[in-house]
């Protein structure tokens, strides 16, 4: 137990610096990520409203697009409009935690994830199920 007594001040400085850095790092970049996630959701909703299949497919996460093609047994551009995704309208709330986001719209909820080429939609057409995971029309496996 004595070693800690000797190095107590050094430890205090290390811990205080570390804890502050962790907290600051976590909070600092959130605003930028929230704006980027919201912008990706808006682009997705515009594509839904315009029934622009290629824009919709480009906005989907790779795993989600793959699952869509697998279940429809057709290319994304040929099948995505069949899903009848609802036009969600304006965003009401954006939650960003790490590299994941939820955008709650007037008539839909989207889940997004950050990829090297920007935020992509992981799940769309999502309806809350109480404490359970959302039920989504389009999602990854």
């Amino acid at each position, binding site marked *: *137990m*004595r*070693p*800690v*007594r*000797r*190095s*107590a*001040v*050094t*430890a*205090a400085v290390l*811990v*205080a610096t*570390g*804890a502050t850095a*962790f*907290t600051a*790092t*976590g909070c600092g970049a959130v605003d930028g990520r929230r704006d980027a996630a919201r912008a990706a959701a808006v682009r997705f909703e515009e594509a839904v409203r315009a029934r622009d299949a290629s824009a919709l497919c480009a906005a989907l*996460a*790779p*795993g*989600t697009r*793959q699952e869509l093609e697998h279940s429809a047994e057709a290319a994304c551009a040929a099948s995505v409009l069949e899903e009848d995704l609802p036009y969600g309208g304006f965003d009401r709330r954006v*939650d960003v*935690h*790490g*590299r*994941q*986001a*939820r955008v709650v719209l007037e008539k839909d909820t989207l*889940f997004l*994830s*950050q*990829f*090297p080429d920007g935020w992509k939609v*992981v*799940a769309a057409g*999502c309806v*809350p199920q109480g*404490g*359970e*995971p*959302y039920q*989504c029309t389009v*999602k*990854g*496996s």
Partner: protein
Amino acid sequence: MTSENGKEHEQEKRSFLLDNGLSLAFGTAFLLALAGQAFAGHAEFNSDLRTDGLAPIGLGDYLASSHFAVDVTENWQSEYLQFFLFVFGTVWLLQRGSPESKEMHKAGPESDKEQRVGRYARADSPRWAATGGWRQALYSRSLGLLMAALFLLSWFAQAVSGAAAYNEQMLRQLQAPVGWGEYVMGADFWSRSLQNWQSELLAVASMAIFSVHLRQRGSPESKPVGAAHTSTGVEG
């Protein structure tokens, strides 16, 4: 002349290493273990992301993530809680035969004479031990208070980073995130806290009782090898 200066410098350096060997060795081992945790945690995190069909992240992003932060701080808080409880608890709580305990008649904060404070302070005593009032009161508890402050600070950091990591996981599972208040009342926060606390408390209890009967020759954490099992407060 230059050669003598060089020798002196070399001696000073060796003396510094000898004087601080314990802190330097454990400080270095801490940094190596933290680096190891960073690499292993990064690999595990990316494996989970790939399983969920999500993009892996770089090491820098992982080090700045709430996932790494909560894994680090949940361990830090429990270590400082352990030392805080140990430092404060051993003022009053005793263990017959243990070198971690004071002698059986010394329970409590002890007299000014025993603690060398106020008029009993010596020439080499810390300045605040000799002065009375709040300075002496504060300095007399400074070690325990520092441990308590470090515990609270790292526990708070765990609560903040834990909430962010938990919510990131909720979003990956297509579930709604929770507020900070709900998180700190929830199972994830308390499971992380209690699983660390129980191991620290076990370690303290084990050390207190095992050191009654077992010895480590040359270690100040042990009684001298030949000391009686009943002798308390004796350090090797």
